[in-house]
């Protein structure tokens, strides 16, 4: 990707709300037709970032450009209605007094027949043909959100901002709608930014994840990268579950409470934390006296089992394995692992 492809650019954005910083020197570029998820806990600044792109918040300082044109700097502020960016909201926000067709036509300009044609196209796109006369409260939440997306896309919008669009729906519906909408959006030439606090939503929807925390970008990469190769302990623990075990490196060896490993990456000697995903650990029954830990709690999840193993050091480790049923509470066990990630202690 070269610089030409950048459709949205944020440079060194600062934003405070009543003296609490929401964004601190944020830099972010989004490329044409990318599907990006801004992922982070509530208060991390992801929604503020989205609203700054949309023009609903003014940054305190920095520079925002859209389609190569500056829309915000010290002198300039282009209001949202001039930015030609579609937005879909958590609370759906279909106008309750307008029919579905009227909602979709809300942002359209031009002759009546042009409008009708475009509304027809959009209704077809979202699979609600012949339902245009209904009022929003007459259709389901999932259908409402699809109409909201149609409304945002109707004026031939190239950029679509989705602010937690699925979180007002129940779990089953959410998964279904996510797939539907992803399918719709990948057909179109549209750049999508999704804001969410739900990592599974982000992983299944986007090809690029921007992890945010305390108003800064923690990691920016593919879902797999973020999961397998987190840049820091915060990312590691926010994405999936992680065990952190203290480790020491002496020259060529990594010494941990559950075994000694070779220092293949040639890390410098010192105190470390070793991060291991629960599914990367295997668990074996052990004879008394040879155990590394004792099973103190377990959860049965059908095809999987989760064990909490108390180590000799007192620390509890989470282990997730395929269900075999050969290990019970209070059993002495040994643990084995291969994938891991080292973080140097500050």
């Amino acid at each position, binding site marked *: 990707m070269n610089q030409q492809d950048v459709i949205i650019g944020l440079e060194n954005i600062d934003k405070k709300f009543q003296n609490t910083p929401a964004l601190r020197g944020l830099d972010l570029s989004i490329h044409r037709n990318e599907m990006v998820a801004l992922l982070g806990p509530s208060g991390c600044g992801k929604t503020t970032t989205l609203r700054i792109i*949309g*023009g*609903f918040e003014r940054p305190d300082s920095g520079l925002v450009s859209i389609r190569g044109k500056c829309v915000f700097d010290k002198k300039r502020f282009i*209001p*949202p*209605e*001039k*930015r*030609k*960016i*579609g*937005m879909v*909201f*958590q*609370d*759906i*926000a279909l*106008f*309750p*007094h*307008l029919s579905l067709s009227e909602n979709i036509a*809300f*942002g359209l*300009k031009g002759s009546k027949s042009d409008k009708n044609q475009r509304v027809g196209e959009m209704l077809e796109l979202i699979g609600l043909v012949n339902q245009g006369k209904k*009022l929003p*409260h007459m259709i389901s939440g999932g259908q409402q959100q699809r109409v*909201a997306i149609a*409304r*945002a896309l109707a*004026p031939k919008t190239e950029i679509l901002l989705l602010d937690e669009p699925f979180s*007002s729906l129940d779990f089953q519906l959410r998964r279904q709608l996510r797939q539907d909408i992803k399918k719709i959006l990948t057909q179109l030439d549209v750049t999508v930014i999704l804001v969410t606090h739900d990592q599974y939503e982000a992983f299944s929807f986007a090809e690029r994840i921007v992890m945010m925390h305390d108003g800064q970008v923690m990691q920016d990469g593919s879902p797999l990268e973020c999961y397998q190769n987190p840049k820091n302990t915060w990312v590691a623990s926010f994405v999936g579950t992680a065990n952190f075990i203290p480790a020491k490196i002496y020259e060529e060896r990594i010494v941990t409470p559950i075994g000694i490993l070779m220092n293949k990456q040639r890390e410098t000697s010192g105190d470390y934390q070793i991060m291991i995903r629960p599914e990367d650990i295997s668990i074996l029954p052990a004879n008394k006296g040879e155990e590394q830990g004792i099973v103190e709690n377990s959860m049965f999840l059908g095809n999987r089992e989760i064990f909490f193993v108390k180590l000799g050091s007192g620390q509890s480790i989470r282990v997730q394995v395929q269900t075999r049923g050969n290990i019970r509470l209070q059993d002495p066990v040994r643990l084995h692992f291969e994938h891991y990630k080292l973080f140097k202690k500050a």
Partner: protein
Amino acid sequence: MNFFRSWSGINLFLCLLLSIPLFTIFISIVPPKIEIWSYLFETRLIELLINTFYLTIGVGVGSFLLGTSLAWIVVMYEFPLKKVFDWALILPMAVPAYVIGFVILTAFEYGGIVPGALEYLFGIEGFYPDIRSGLGVIIVMSLVLYPYVYLLARSAFRDQNQSYLDAARSLGVTQKMLFIRVALPLARPSIVAGVSLALMESLADFGTVAIFSFDTFTTAIYEVWFGMYERSAATQLASMLLMFNFIFFWLEYRTRGKAVYYQSSGASRKQKSFRVSLPKKIILFSYPAIILCCSFVFPVAVLIYWALDVWDMQVQSRFFEYAFNSLLLGLLSGLIIIPIALILAYGKRLNPGIISFLTTRISTLGYAIPGSVIAVGVLIPLSWIDYRINDITSYLWDYSPGLILTGSIAAILFAYTVRFMTVGFNSVDSSLLKITTSMDMAAQSLGLSRLGIMKKIHFKLIRSGLLTGFILVFVDVMKEMPATLLMRPFGFDTLATWIWQLTSEAMAKQAALPALIIVAVGLFPVIILIGLDKKTSFGED
């Protein structure tokens, strides 16, 4: 247990009793009395219809413009004293329209405060606008009745999800057009409901139109009843007024239900105010300030000035007697209405279903019926009973006791009970609704009898609701004018009827003290309202 079953019987009985006036008016229309209608048509019906039409359109437009614009400004913009205006703009509700009416009328008259001040301050002489006109009535009523629209429009704007506005802007709507394209259509049900309430009040008003010599149905009923003793003509006029009022009653009821769809669902973003420049801020500050001055500050200030001016004469006059009468009627009405409201609301709770729904609904129609209509509807059956009593006594003992019921305090109290049952019932019922059935079940499972639940749980929880209802009834009775004028016993006056007497004799200054008392008392429910309002609107902060 049987006692609780028979409760719906009690409700039905109360419902029948309370619907006597309405029923009387209804049956008087059928069969239509051709000669009376043609007589009315020839004399004044056309004028009355035109005036009513004019008043409805005028007050409708006036209260809509004032209420909606003030609500929008207060919700959406930042300007000095915004938080104060937010509640202060409700204050005109405490002032009966007829009080503002006579204050403004007197203040603009020859030798009044306004022309005097203009001459003294600016040297403008001979400024005497024709206030005593239809336009004058409309302005005065709009100034007093806009809070109905303001309250409902404001909560509609406030509850409007910020996302609606953001969505509209992302679709190309400018900040200035948001009001027209999004906010106003969304608030429409609430605004229609508010305007309907204001129009119901304006149709029921007697005092203001009487002072301004602007004939409407209420004044015509009064004149026909007293001036011509044409009871059936008055009844027909009352039926017509009732019909108009029910149109707005129905409109209000219908749109209220609709407003539910227009509220946002789920989590919503807090409303963000628009930032504006300093000159605009000054304009935004001046507008509500001027409205509040005209509708509350100026009239109250003038009343205080006048009351002090004629203080000695007041004390000598019969002020205390009339104040006592008002107080007595208010207290007695509260003591009658609140227990009945409690019985109705409790019956509805014990036996929910279509019958209790209908009985409570019909029993509480009174607020939709103008006082003059109720008065006529009460007087007709009562005078019928009086005549029968006289027939019987003169036949048996050759003695006529005269009119016992008509023109008695009991008759007035009955009319008040019908008219203000709604107020009492709503506050009792809403406090009773907060007690969930699972609370009852929890108490029952812990061994409390039904009577015990009533005593130990329900009564304790609804006490404040009962008190609120009592205060609201008391204040409404204090302000009530047309029914009292039509029904009071000879030589009996309340503060409200006294104000009417004094103003019709051009003694406005003397009317200032009783008017001030009514305004002061009227402030209580408005303060309660403001308190409730703050709880709901600032609860999240």
